[in-house]
């Protein structure tokens, strides 16, 4: 077989040298007979790049990529997408594996991506905030400092100063803390409106501090689900909606947490 393949690599059979592969996928093996209705078979000129084989295999089985990136393996060795088949010296009948990562592990969000999302959402939120008399301060937003501040009022006109740390936004919700006017006394109870959880935290899915892994009371929520509705209300999935919800709650709040 190896000798025969050497001949093929030299092109002795006429035409460009080719190799017949077998490719195991999650949905079965792609080979010269399976799937029976495949529009294409895994016979490739050896100059073909690995990325083309991946694309063809995905097309045959209808695999959707989204955030995942399909890879080919030979045994346990991953193959480089830009390398040609020839560089691996595969013989006819070589078995490759098409695989892809899975699961739901959140990945790091680049600060520049977070900043763009925050600025975009705050453009809309700013007009709303102005219309309800809430002050928004986002002049210090940078990729290194994904923080903006807001001043809310309750029904007696008392001021409450909130700090939104949006690191990893919009994948993860903002970390909301109440502070004094200068930005100090972060997270102290007497900085919070009395309507919130006594831990203290804003006890909503959109508040990172509400989650158990950040010391909050909610062990049954997952942060990556922060956009979802709860039994107590509909979904809140943007900074504008968060500001609106906080405004409504604080407005009805009689005073400060003790």
């Amino acid at each position, binding site marked *: 077989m190896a000798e025969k393949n050497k001949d093929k690599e030299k092109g002795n059979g006429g035409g460009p040298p080719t190799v017949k592969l077998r490719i*195991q*996928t*999650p*949905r*079965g*093996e792609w080979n010269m007979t399976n799937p029976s209705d495949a529009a294409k078979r895994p016979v490739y000129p050896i100059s073909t790049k690995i990325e083309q084989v991946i694309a063809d295999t995905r097309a045959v*089985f*209808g*695999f*959707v*990529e*989204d*955030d*995942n*990136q*399909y*890879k080919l*393996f030979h045994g*346990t060795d*991953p193959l480089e997408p830009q390398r040609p088949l020839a560089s691996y010296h595969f013989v006819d009948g070589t*078995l490759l*594996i*098409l*695989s*892809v*990562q*899975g*699961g*739901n*592990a*959140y990945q790091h969000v680049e600060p520049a991506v977070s900043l763009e999302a925050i600025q975009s959402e705050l453009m809309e939120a700013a007009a709303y905030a102005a219309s309800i008399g809430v002050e928004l301060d986002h002049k210090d937003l940078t990729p290194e400092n994904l923080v903006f501040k807001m001043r809310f009022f309750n029904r007696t006109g008392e001021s409450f100063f909130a700090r939104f740390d949006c690191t990893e936004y919009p*994948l993860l919700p903002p970390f909301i803390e109440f502070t004094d006017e200068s930005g100090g006394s972060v997270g102290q109870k007497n900085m919070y409106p009395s309507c919130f959880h006594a831990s203290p935290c804003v006890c909503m899915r959109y508040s990172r501090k509400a989650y158990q*892994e950040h010391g909050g009371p909610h*062990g*049954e*929520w*997952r*942060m*990556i*689900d922060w*956009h*979802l509705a709860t039994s107590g209300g509909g979904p809140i999935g943007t900074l504008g909606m968060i500001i609106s919800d906080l405004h409504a709650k604080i407005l009805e709040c009689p005073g400060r947490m003790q």
Partner: protein
Amino acid sequence: MQSKKVYITDVLWERSRRLLNSFAAVGSEATEGIVYWFGFETADVGIVTTLLVPDATASWGCISTSAEANAEVLMSVVGTPLVLIGQAHSHPGSDVSHSPIDDRQTFPRFEGAISVVVPHFARNVVGLQECGVHRFVDGAYKNVPPRENEDHLVVLLGEHNFRKQSKSKSQ
């Protein structure tokens, strides 16, 4: 939402739950778990026969499987007629929705794939109605309304002993 109905026996359903719960029992911190469902498909139905647990990295609120870990799973079915039908994974609480990340990163990503979410780290015996059922339709995962769960996934009798208890001849 039209997709092939998937069948699994009650034995494999319960075994899936135990495998998911085995993640929660490892170490001091409970984590999400995952199990892949492989089996046979006809033109009309999918039948789960085989449960394969990838070498996943799990934590309290998430779970991930590398392409290498999934390739290891696929190596084990080479030369068989088994195909991936779907997966089950567990969530910490009662919420059995798919997150946007679940939607975009779940390993089975082809038309008709089924993804079942089991609540409370699969600690307790659960019925299908308590689970979230999601189908990959028209290029994306879609949530199945709970009242339609059995249109998509049917738990079959897998084992039952009909032997009647009777007096032995010697008595």
